């Protein structure tokens, strides 16, 4: 079982969370072209090793988190809030 260390709730079972997706995508602006949107929502790298992905603590604090996880071993290197302002707060509180 993957255990995720939520910055707000502490280490919890992955069953409390919902997987989001690739956390490194920069979604284009709403008026961007179909081509740009196609790139953003359909094309994904199939990473072997560590990747940044979003998880929603849906049965917890409801925060969206960026989790740096190995797709091979499930090892988790880091967990941060998605929102950049909250990331800063989390950094400062360390």
């Amino acid at each position: 079982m993957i255990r995720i260390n939520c910055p707000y709730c502490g280490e919890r079972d992955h069953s409390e969370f919902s997987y989001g997706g690739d956390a490194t995508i920069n979604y284009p602006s709403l008026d961007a072209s179909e081509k740009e949107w196609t790139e953003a929502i359909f094309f994904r790298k199939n990473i072997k090793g560590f990747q940044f992905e979003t998880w929603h603590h849906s049965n917890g604090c409801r925060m969206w988190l960026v989790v740096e996880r190995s797709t091979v071993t499930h090892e988790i290197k880091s967990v941060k809030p998605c929102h950049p302002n909250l990331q800063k707060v989390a950094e400062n509180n360390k």
Partner: protein
Amino acid sequence: MKTRRLDNYGKINRDKILSFSWDKKNYKGFEGDTLASALLANNIGIVGRSFKYHRPRGIFSSGVEESGALVTIGSKDRRDPNVRATTQELYNGLEASGQNAFPNVNFDLAGINNYLGRFFAAGFYYKTFMGIPPLEWGKGTAIWMFFEKFIRKAAGMGSASGLPDPDTYEHAHDFCDLIVVGSGPAGVAAALEAAEKKLDVILVEQDSLIGGNQLAENDFDNSQIKNQLENLGIKIMTRTTAFGLYDNCVVGLLERVTDHISAPNVNIPRQRFWTIRAKHIIVGAGAIERHIAFNNNDIPGVMTVNASKHYLNRYGVLTGKRIVIATNNDSVYETAHQLSEAGANVTVLDSRTNFEIETNKSFEIRKGYVPYNINGSKKIDSLDISKNETINKSETINCDQVLLSGGWSPAVHLLSHRGVKPKWDYNNACFLPSDTKENITMVGSSRGLWNKNDCIASGIAGTTDALNRLGISKTNYFFPKPGGWKNPIQPLYEVKYKKSRSKSFVDYQHDVTTDDVRLAHREGFISVEHLKRYTTLGMANDQGKMGNIIGLSLMAELLNKEIPEVGTTVFRPPYTPVSIGALSGRNVGKHFRPLRVTPMHQWNIDHGAKMIEVGLYQRPWYYPKENETLSDSYIREASTVRKTVGICDVTSLGKIAIQGPDSTEFLNRIYSNGFSKLEVGKARYGIMLRDDGIVMDDGTSWRLAENEYFMTTSTGEAAKVMSWLEELLQTRWTDLNVNVTSVSEQWAGVSVAGPKSREVLNNCVDDSLVVTNNNLPFMGVTSTFLKGNIPCRIARISFSGELAFEVYVKSDFANTMMDLLWANAKKYDGCLYGLEALGALRVEKGHVTAAELDGRVTIDDVGLSKMASTKKSYIGSAMRKRGVLKNNDREILVGFFPTNLKETFNAGTIVCEKNNIKGQGIGRITSVTYSPELGHWIGLGFVKGGLDKWKDTNLVGADPVRNKQMNLKVVSPHMIDPKGERMYA
């Protein structure tokens, strides 16, 4: 074979006599017996029939690796099949019976299968009964369907009761620093060392007693060890199996709480399913003795050497009178000595010629000899032996038991669950655990250590390893080298039988013979994983604990390779079977999943509602009067709404509070239609698309104040929409100043619909002016008070096509609101209506729900193009016209009438052209209802090209599942009041 209880042996409690039954006959045993030891003490040798050939089978082992003594325990709804007699503790009144035999294991009519062996060889099922690719639905399939039940019965295991399980099961959780699996010398040493270093330790033991294989020693007493462990505060869990290791040091345990008790307290669960989250795991799971493949090596009376030692020293049962031990290693000699001391006549065949062993000469050793063939069928009459150099029968020894030791396999299973491949050790002829970066350490004989002192040293080293990895210490340590016997083991897996057909079993439980392995090789199934599936080797509930290595060695020989080049199968959880009951725990029956009810749930039931499940919610389905059926009731309810007024609980809709200065901008981005100009005090119907342009959900948003909205979503998508809004705000549009809060549970909602709805509401609000057409026009919103000073929100929203209002109050006021509305609705001959009538009303009106918005349709497909703003960009706007979404043969929302208005149809009907009734047709019907307004059945659905293309054509509705077919007419989805004059009234 003659097995009997000895007076001066064993650690059973002879003061406590237990009676039990085997195949309906009564026997006696003692407290501390397993079912297997009690059967042996009563000289019962045949306890089962084999899987395919129905050969008589006895007890092969004394533990979890058992592949012969699988029996059925209990009766009626407590019948538990495929229980290992070797691990089932005896209790007073235990009922056990043999399985896979008719009429019983001693005389089994299907024993004839033994002579039809070639029909049951490897791959038999595949060859005989499967369709021939690529014609998968071939002749074989039909034959299989006919014969399946007979074959399953003939080649089978015990059967389940088929009745609901009367027992309860529990899920439990715990945390610790260190979990130690196995209470042998290594595990105990590790646990003690860790507890002394102040770690929080759980020690898990599958047996009822701690001690591991020491329990087979004649002078072993575990009471002192137990005290030591307890004094250090170690949590000891016996009768508990660590069945699987998972990510992040999570261990799955199965605790058998009452399986050993004759009349368990009904208030305690039968088993507990534990999830342990540890920081480090030490596995001292021991090693499992292997058998040797030779002809008739399955006759009752064949057993592992270590099992015989257990029966003698733990249970006081001598398993034979004239015993032949066949070995290739040193581990058997102590047992040989003890068996002869106990009165048996013992001969040891050792395949090795060049070795030294100290004995007191109480038994004979035949160096360089191997077992060749057992004579006998239900019992052993004699054993043909052979010289190991040149395999052939050289002489025959009269005996009643053959004990085997083909070497030992460390129990690397748990480590294998983590994807760590074991490595082959040539010196010890076994797989040893490899190192892992995870916090798991293998100790004792599960890392190939054969003597006790090495095991203890490895336990202490294991804990030091754990402390280092946890950053608590930095101490050097070393593990003893694998091995520990004086003379090296000589690999011996099979003694080849010279005659053409042999029954040399590799996997007893699934009746896999050495010939089956060779056949698989001849037919090209040479990879280990193919071999496993083709022959079913290692796939029974012992999971090949005894036979896997033998199978591998045979394949290695056939391929002219070494064992490690052939590979090993990956072990997966569970280590031993886990009952479905334990997996489901308390989540059974009504507790299978959460139940959601609205705050007026009881009110609805008290007023005659029949309920229906919608997702997790219980919603009113219909409110029958007297003898009304479902259809009588919903037709009356829907007609009443159109004629006067109806009240419907709509609380299950998702409700989200959206607050903050950027709320309007936010809504404008997530909805396809414009929200920037929505005035305060107005609501708007909106559609949300996904990023890829497909419709996600629809609902309404009410502007309560400049920076505050109240959003409703569909019942089914409420959770998804909430997560989606949070995701957008937290990951994508982090500059927007908006807060979203789920308020679904906080508000109770009701729809008041029908031409008299305003009059009803008028009587219910404090200030009757608030609901006039002027003050509350179509899509108007107001925050006001119901009589009794109850704050409420009212919006003039219609789902039925009638003049209608949605009224929300705080959940605590739900019943008061219902009482008030219902008292006034009755004055106008109104009704309560449920989901079925709601469905009828919305289908008549052409409103889409989840049946239509199924994650495949675009805004244009459902005829709501005008909801797609051209003045702004929004989620999905770039993608909604992409590629296939703009094809002009897409399926478009339409209404359907049966051509003959007396006919009916069902949702799921496939719409076809008249002369082309096949495949997926040109469309489908998604929702149907009887229309009280129109007086016949109507449907909503999709058809390629939509209304314009088919409005004058007769189509056919094909419903092959219900064997129905009807002619159809395509009509506008807005089947009543298309201009909406009623809503605006």
